[in-house]
Each structure stands twice: as C-alpha cells, then as structure tokens.
C-alpha cells in the first residue's frame, strides 16, 4: 500500500481541521448563540448564508487567478484551478441563493425581490453556470480553454459589484457585516459567525483542491490516450 506523501498529509490535515471546526460551529450556532430579538431562530441562517457567500467569492477568485495564469502561460494545473473555482462558486452560490430566500420569507415576508445584491449575486452564479456548461459541452481544445478563461475573468468583474451594491444602491438586503464591526451585539453571535466563516473557508479550499486534482488527472489521462492513438498502440479489431 502506498504511503501518504506530504501533499496527502496536508490535505487530510485540512479535512480534519475543517471537520472539527464545522462541528464546533454547529455547537455554537445551535446551542450557544442566542436567538435574535425581532427575527427569532430564522436569523441563525445568517451563520451559514454569509460564510457560503465568502466560499463563493473564494471559488470565483480561484477561477479568476487560474484563468489569468492560463492565458499568460497555459498549463493543466492553471486550467484545472479555474475550472475547480467555477464549480465551487456555483455550489456555494446555490447555497447562498437558497438559504437567503428562506431567511427572507420570514424577515421580509417574500422569498425574492429584485434587490441589487440579490440580482447581482444571481447574475454571478449564472455566469459561472455558463462557464461550466461551456466546459462540459464546448469541447476541450486549447481554443475552448482560452475562451473559458476569458469568461472566468469576466465573471469576476461582478464580484466587487455584489459586495458594494448594498452601499451604493438602495435595497432591502441587510448590512450586518461592516468594516466598523457589524451588528452582532452578543459575543456568542460573533463567535458563531467567525467559526462559520473559517470552517466554510476551509471547506471551500478542500473542495477546490479535490476538484482541481481530479481535473489535472483527467487532462493527464487525455494526453495518455492521445499518445496511445499516436503510437498506434490500440488493439486492431
């Protein structure tokens, strides 16, 4: 049996820390953090809605960096990072776009409104869905990869708009987390939020790692298959 390399050990350490932090987050969110005065228990959605949004930003940033690096000098790893980033952005974006409306049903009385932050978040997720559709059905040649990289860069242009939309335009979306300290008055609320943020960040990193590794393996296998064809090693029927 193959012994674990340094990369494997680092990955399993990341998973172990993320698991412990996730369990701790659940404990603090559900058993320690107090119920909010006006919204009640539904406010606890916040502790994984906002961290999921940061997970989405992280995936989108990986997609941006991977895409830029790929356009400068194409390698399998750079393309795989961009692809993994887009996938993580879609997974966490879907969590954001479903947990948010569930909170809104209670807080606003309706699931969805065309608020600037909601609209720009939806748009961003749709851009990354388009990226994944392109990668899945648009072929896997260098031209398609370059076009996807351009889309990965374009998708990231929306991120600052999502972030600043609540400050620049009027809308219903709350601004609890601010540079001035935010509106979490109780220390256990702050603890739950910070733990959620860290555990989701580690989860997003682990997901990025796994997905990028799978994409690199797939590219290497593609090349090995092409070599067998080029060397005419395929068994003749």
């Amino acid at each position, binding site marked *: 049996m193959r012994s674990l390399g340094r990369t494997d050990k680092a990955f399993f350490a990341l998973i172990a820390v993320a698991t412990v932090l996730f369990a701790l987050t659940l404990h603090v969110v559900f058993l320690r953090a107090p119920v909010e005065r006006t919204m009640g228990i539904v406010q606890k*959605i916040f502790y994984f809605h906002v961290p999921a949004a940061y997970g989405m930003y992280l995936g989108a940033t990986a997609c941006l960096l991977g895409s830029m690096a790929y356009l400068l000098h194409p390698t399998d790893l750079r393309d795989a990072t961009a692809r993994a980033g887009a996938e993580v952005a879609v997974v966490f974006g879907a*969590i954001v776009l479903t*947990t948010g409306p*569930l*909170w809104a049903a209670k807080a606003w*009385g309706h699931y969805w409104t065309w608020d600037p932050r909601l609209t720009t978040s939806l748009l961003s997720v749709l851009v990354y869905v388009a990226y994944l559709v392109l990668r899945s059905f648009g072929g896997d040649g260098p031209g398609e990869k370059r076009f996807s990289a351009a889309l990965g860069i374009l998708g990231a242009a929306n991120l600052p708009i999502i972030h600043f939309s609540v400050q620049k335009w009027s809308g219903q979306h709350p601004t609890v987390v601010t540079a001035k300290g935010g509106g979490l008055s109780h220390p256990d609320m702050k603890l739950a939020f910070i733990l959620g943020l860290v555990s989701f960040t580690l989860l997003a990193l682990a997901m990025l790692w796994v997905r990028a590794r799978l994409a690199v393996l*797939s590219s290497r296998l593609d090349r090995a298959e092409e070599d067998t064809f080029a060397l005419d*090693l395929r068994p003749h029927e």
Partner: protein
Amino acid sequence: MNPSNSVSPPQDRATTFQPVEGGTESHSGTVLLVEAYVVLWVLLLAWIAMLWRKQSVLFERLGELEKTLDHVTKTPEDH
C-alpha cells in the same frame, strides 16, 4: 353539480382587512432554518456524488488504457 351553486355571492365576500394582535405567523422560523440547513447538506452531498461519478468515468478510461497497454506488452511482435 352546477358550479355556479358553490360560488358565494359578491356581498358575502370580505371587504376589509382586520389586523390581529399576536396572530399566527405565515412562516415558521424553525422550519425555514431546518430547510436551509437541509439545502446546504443536499447541495454539498450532490456535489460529492458528482465528483464520484467523474472519478468513475476516469477509472473506466484508465481501465481501457491498461487493457491497451497489456495487449501491447503481451504481443510485442505486432508493433
């Protein structure tokens, strides 16, 4: 049954909205919280299942490649 018999006459319909102090809520916060939490895990597990499927495809392709290489190493005089 004639559908017109079951329709209330216009004068029987409500004409005002009356507020009720401490009335029941339309959405239960607990149910919404559980729904949000379930969605979170369903999406993460669906993503893991998708990764598993992609790995299975890679395993199949790797198996084909190994078969090809086995075939070549067993019959070297053909190449």
